[in-house]
């Protein structure tokens, strides 16, 4: 007879279980078991993986939980009496599973979802009792195992007789008949101790006394003995105590016997317990029989009990439809046709109709009409909130989605294939991802809960596993190593899996020093480091905790909470215990509602445009828009000036001019140095070019050298080559190069006639060792049958095989290209509003100061901080005086000033305007340091000017400093921010003058220090004389140079990248900004050797290199050497009389004064520490 383990923790019992469900199921099956339980701690975190593993191993899954129970006699809110295992009964149409889900949700209902909550996840006995019976039939549907960790088991230590009996009796009194079973466990610890055989005997006898059935278990934590050490380390991580500390207490497992023992070993264990109890063979038989009987009762039918693979969507009534969902869907699509295709006729109408019918047929056959309606409903709801929403991903392949307004890309126009999204051959719920404004994401979540009801919605969770840094920290903690030492080591671990720690020690140069220390263990007693490496590897990937998934929302019908346990997320909203891998098996509809900062930035820009230009005519004039059909401007601008971005035609020539200029900083997806280079080479002329550009700029295509041939064909440098004329229609748009998944599908279809649905299955099989061979066989056979020559077949198969694993779905590219185009359109027509939005929501990859520099480069005035004009957001403002009069400028916001609290900011804005400093102090009570910082940034300059006089900003700052020093001397009784200061009434008028006004460099330094942005001037400006002496070429001059010209360039670092490269040799890309634009430089191996540590540690760089022309508007620098600009003694000043030796005449070196190196005035960056915020990189 085989033995069934009823108490097993998987690795998904965070900081407790060691082994993965697949390992456990495989081991149980290999031993001849027919069923296996998964009873993770506090939830069903590993349950669905367990189901999958059991089905793969041919086992019946048993589902339960290891749950803490509040002490009835203690404080119910916080005191736990012990832990019990609760198993769901199976084969009852889900009644057991439902009760288990609800019970677990009960256990979490009082927790906060925040770290450090004081209320543990636990149930009261009353909750347990009420869930144990099915409310309809009153039959038991749960069994509670009272085992060694229950209050009963814990009271069995020592020789107390009465206490365990009292506690056990309480359980029997509280629980419905037939729901309590005793769990007998011996892990063979020392006689009399917890988990000893003697302990097991006491439980067995207690059960016998009360006529309660007893089952045998091993309270498993790991699949084999080897896991015991990992369990020790997890105990340490859970309790935050080192192993030596835990061993002293003693809180560690008594030994390493909590493994998945074989049936034979469990039988021996049973014999030993029965023998020690003085019982006989019949009792042994009964113990094992009860175990198997309970196992049988708990065998789950994944489909009938848990809804395995049965998609569930909200009830039709909830999404506001009556009758047939498909008819409703068809009707809504019909309505969309007039909106999306006004006046369509002829062959394009026929084509469109055919496509729509095709999609509807597939949707009907899968029964997914309600699903599409649900997604449309969510999308409509978000739009009605006034929040920008855009579908991303393969959902853009669907005409139905386009017609219903879910996606913004016409799939017919861009040749997007529905089968890439959904087909009869793939009965899983497809993913539709909706991008929303990041700033509105949580509001959107709350609205979805409101709209569909809390019983139908929950957030999805994600499992956070150990990665190298966390693993080495916790391994170090376990070994009791010094926190500082561990941090030092952890800091060097970057982007590799903990599992390969020992391997990485050999390979990674940054770990060289640590590797040396591990080697030396014999001399210095460093054996701990060797253990550290082993334990780190043991922790690799083990789940640590769950958290709210960044975008997943689960939508279901009214039974959703019968199918998943939920617990509070950090946001307060309930979160499922299931992660993305569990969605499809459990038939759960998941929407990805992703917060995208660019959407927030664009929404902000559109609001600024309408605020400044509150009518259609104003907007048309300000944005230089086309006069439109009736001369009043285009249709996408409403009478009140609102721009409907999604309605802007995708063919605006000025927008493509801007894109081709490569001045795309701030634009979605195309602002990175690599993308600007590619844009420069590709020179997009139309929307489809943008789709191709975005699809090409992926690791796969970049690595596999698809880009070069594509560009050569595009620009006509090399003739297009098609493997076969039949493939010309498929590959024409990309000049014969296979770029898109869609092209793979069509290639399969053209050459084998397999149909697009099967073609997508084939595409998925590419890269899969087993399946790929079958696909190849099919492809070769069918292509041959269609008379394609062996050479063609070979060539095409080679492409398919090489491409399949990393190609890009064109629908993804198309969905991305929409916000790319829209952001470029805004930058072209409303640059001030656009950049204000970018500064406000900071969506890109660069430090904010670069986007401020971009405004300066574009001639947009940057308006300084002003206590009466600056708001909590960046604002576009007409400039009323000075040289920029009549232009639109961007006023700096009060947000993001170092040290100014959110509350202070709110009070300042609420109290505007102020007529004096005293007024400001009196009404906002902001702290003295904040006032001083505002003064340093010039926020009071306008007040200052108003009172006249001849004092300056430096005098005011000095005055405020004095004020502060004096009060400090007075003692601590004056509380900061209180109104206790005796201040002059006419502070500014009476200011003592005489200090020199701050220099521009000083001002810029203060701005960098307090805002990490150089506002008043570009920070490189202060180095201009030095750069002139060096003969540096500025960014705006580079494009005039010939390819291969040697130049010196200089600027502040704005981007540093080391992308993976073909051939494996590291290439470093560094971009610098010199105030006239960005210079992108590339350091190959030799240049890296030359530049050495400067490569990653320097903020201001001088780079020597040669120009590399990358396209009509693109140029970059192939670097040969770099210097730190702030170390003037090291710089390569031209020798006296050498003149314009460098720069091919483009530099101004020849005009610079000659002589010894300048005694440099301090630069704006001197003494400023905020390297990461300023350069986007911190070494």
């Amino acid at each position, binding site marked *: 007879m085989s033995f069934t383990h009823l108490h097993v923790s998987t690795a998904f019992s965070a900081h407790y279980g060691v082994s993965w469900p697949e390992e456990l199921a495989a081991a149980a099956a290999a031993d001849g078991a027919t069923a296996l339980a998964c009873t993770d701690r506090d939830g069903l975190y590993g349950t669905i993986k367990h189901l999958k593993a059991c089905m793969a191993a041919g086992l019946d899954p048993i589902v339960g939980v290891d749950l803490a129970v509040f002490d009835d006699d203690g404080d119910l809110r916080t005191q736990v009496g012990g832990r019990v295992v609760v198993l769901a009964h199976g084969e009852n149409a889900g009644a057991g599973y439902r009760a288990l889900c609800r019970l677990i949700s009960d256990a979490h209902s009082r927790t906060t979802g925040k770290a450090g909550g004081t209320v543990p996840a636990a149930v009261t006995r009353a909750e347990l009792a009420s869930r144990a019976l099915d409310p309809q039939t009153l039959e038991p549907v749960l069994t509670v195992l009272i085992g060694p960790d229950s209050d009963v088991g814990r009271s069995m230590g020592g020789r107390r007789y009465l206490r365990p009996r009292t506690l056990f009796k309480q359980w029997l009194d509280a629980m419905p008949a037939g729901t309590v079973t005793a769990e007998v466990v011996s892990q063979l610890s020392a*006689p009399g101790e917890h988990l000893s055989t003697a302990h097991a005997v006491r439980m067995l006898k207690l059960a016998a006394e009360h006529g309660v059935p007893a089952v045998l278990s091993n309270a498993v934590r790991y699949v084999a003995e080897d896991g015991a050490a990992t369990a020790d380390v997890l105990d340490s991580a859970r309790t935050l105590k080192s192993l030596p500390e835990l061993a002293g207490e003693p809180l560690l497992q008594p030994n*390493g016997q909590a493994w998945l023992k074989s049936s034979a070993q469990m039988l021996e264990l049973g014999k030993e317990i029965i023998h020690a109890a003085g019982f006989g063979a019949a009792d042994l038989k009964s113990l094992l029989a009860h175990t198997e009987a309970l196992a049988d009762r708990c065998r789950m039918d994944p489909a009938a009990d848990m809804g395995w693979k049965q998609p569930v969507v909200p009830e039709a009534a909830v999404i506001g439809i009556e009758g047939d969902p498909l008819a409703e869907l068809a009707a809504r699509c019909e309505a969309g046709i007039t909106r999306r295709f006004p006046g369509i006729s002829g062959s394009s109408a026929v084509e469109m109709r055919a496509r729509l019918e095709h999609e509807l047929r597939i949707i009907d056959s899968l029964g997914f009409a309600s699903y599409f309606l649900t997604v449309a409903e969510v999308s409509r709801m978000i739009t009605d909130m006034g929040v920008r929403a855009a579908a991303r991903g393969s959902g853009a392949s669907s005409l139905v989605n386009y017609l219903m307004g879910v996606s913004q890309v016409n799939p017919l126009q861009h040749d997007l294939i529905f089968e890439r999204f959904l087909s009869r051959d793939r009965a899983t719920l497809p993913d539709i991802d909706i991008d929303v404004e990041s700033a509105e994401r949580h509001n959107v979540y709350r609205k979805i809960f409101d709209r569909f009801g809390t019983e139908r919605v929950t957030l999805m969770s994600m499992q956070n596993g150990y990665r190298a840094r966390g693993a080495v920290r916790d391994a170090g903690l376990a070994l009791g190593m010094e926190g500082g030492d561990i941090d030092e080591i952890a800091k060097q671990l970057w982007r590799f899996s903990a599992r390969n720690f020992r391997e990485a020690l050999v390979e990674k140069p940054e770990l060289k020093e640590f590797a040396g220390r591990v080697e030396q263990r014999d001399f210095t007693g460093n054996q701990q480091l060797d253990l550290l490496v082993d334990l780190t590897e043991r922790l690799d990937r083990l789940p640590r905790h769950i958290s709210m998934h960044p975008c997943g929302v689960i939508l279901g019908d009214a039974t959703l909470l019968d199918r998943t346990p939920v617990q509070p997320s950090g946001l307060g909203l309930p979160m499922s215990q299931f992660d993305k891998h569990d969605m499809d098996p459990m038939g759960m509809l998941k929407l990805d509602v992703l917060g995208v900062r660019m959407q927030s930035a664009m929404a902000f820009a559109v609001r600024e445009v309408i605020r400044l230009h509150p009518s259609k005519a104003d907007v048309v004039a300000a944005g230089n828009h086309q006069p439109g059909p009736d001369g009043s401007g285009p249709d996408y601008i409403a009478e009140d000036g609102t721009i409907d971005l999604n309605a802007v035609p995708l063919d605006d020539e000025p927008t493509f001019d801007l894109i081709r200029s490569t001045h795309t900083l701030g634009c979605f997806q195309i602002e990175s140095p690599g993308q600007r280079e590619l844009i420069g080479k590709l020179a997009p002329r139309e929307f489809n070019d943008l789709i191709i550009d975005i699809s090409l700029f992926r690791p796969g295509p970049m690595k596999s050298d698809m880009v070069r041939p594509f560009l050569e064909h595009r620009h006509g440098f090399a003739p297009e080559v098609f493997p076969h004329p039949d493939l010309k229609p498929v590959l024409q748009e990309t000049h014969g190069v296979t770029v898109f998944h869609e092209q793979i599908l069509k290639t399969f279809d053209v050459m084998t006639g397999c149909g697009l649905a099967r073609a997508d299955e084939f595409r998925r099989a590419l890269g899969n060792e087993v399946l790929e061979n079958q696909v190849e066989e099919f492809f070769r056979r069918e292509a041959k049958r269609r008379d394609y020559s062996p050479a063609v077949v070979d060539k095409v198969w080679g492409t398919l095989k090489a491409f399949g694993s990393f190609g890009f779905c064109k629908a993804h590219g198309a969905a991305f290209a929409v916000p790319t185009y829209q952001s470029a359109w805004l930058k072209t027509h409303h640059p001030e509003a656009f950049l204000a939005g970018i500064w406000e929501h900071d969506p890109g990859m660069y430090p904010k100061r670069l986007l401020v520099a971009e405004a300066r480069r574009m001639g947009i005035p940057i308006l300084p901080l002003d206590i009466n004009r600056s708001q909590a957001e960046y604002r576009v403002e007409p400039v009323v005086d000075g040289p920029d009069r009549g232009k639109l400028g961007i006023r700096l916001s009060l947000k993001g000033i170092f040290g100014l609290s959110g509350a202070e900011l709110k009070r300042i804005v609420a109290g505007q305007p102020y007529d004096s400093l005293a007024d400001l102090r009196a009404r906002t009570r902001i702290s003295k340091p904040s006032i001083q910082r505002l003064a340093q940034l010039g926020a009071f300059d306008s007040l200052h000017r108003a009172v006249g006089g001849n004092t300056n900003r430096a005098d005011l700052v000095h005055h405020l400093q004095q004020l502060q020093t004096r009060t400090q001397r007075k003692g601590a009784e004056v509380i900061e921010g209180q109104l206790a200061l005796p201040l002059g009434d006419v502070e500014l008028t009476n200011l003592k003058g005489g200090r020199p006004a701050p220099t521009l460099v000083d001002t810029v330094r203060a701005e960098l220090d307090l805002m990490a942005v150089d506002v008043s001037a570009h920070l490189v400006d202060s180095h201009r004389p030095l750069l002139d002496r060096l003969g540096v070429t500025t960014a705006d001059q580079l494009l005039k140079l010939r390819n291969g010209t040697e130049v010196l360039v200089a600027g502040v670092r704005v981007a540093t990248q080391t992308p993976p490269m073909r051939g494996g040799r590291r290439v470093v890309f560094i971009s610098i900004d010199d105030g006239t634009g960005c210079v992108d430089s590339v350091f190959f191996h030799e240049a890296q050797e030359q530049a050495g540590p400067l490569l990653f540690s320097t903020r201001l760089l001088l780079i020597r290199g040669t120009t590399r022309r990358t396209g009509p508007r693109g140029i970059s620098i192939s670097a040969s050497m770099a210097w730190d600009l702030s170390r003037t003694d090291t710089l390569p000043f031209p020798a006296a009389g050498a003149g314009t030796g460098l720069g091919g005449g483009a530099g101004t070196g020849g005009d610079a004064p000659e002589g010894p190196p300048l005694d440099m005035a301090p630069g704006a960056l001197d003494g400023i520490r905020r390297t990461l915020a300023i350069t986007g990189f911190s070494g």
Partner: protein
Amino acid sequence: MGMFSESVEVACTPEGRPESLVWAGRSYELCAEPVRWFERREWWAEEQRAPLGSGPGLVDSEIWRLEVRDASAPDQSLTLDLSRHLRSGRWRLLRLHDALAGQRRPASA
């Protein structure tokens, strides 16, 4: 009671249960049913390495408490705690309970 770490030769039944032993040149026979348990080791202090796949015996060792009688002096019984190293199968003497013979609780656990 004394703490030892002396090697002992133990003869076992086919099931792995000790029957007799040779210690310091003298042979002993079991005179009572032996007791077996597993006891934790402070492996983090005692071991240099703990890689994945180390197998059994890293975290605990098997302990047998044997009450034995010297064949030549049948009146006197001794209680010994022996540890069996799970990896090598070697037996070592862990404790000698001379004054505490017969008691079932380990004095130092």
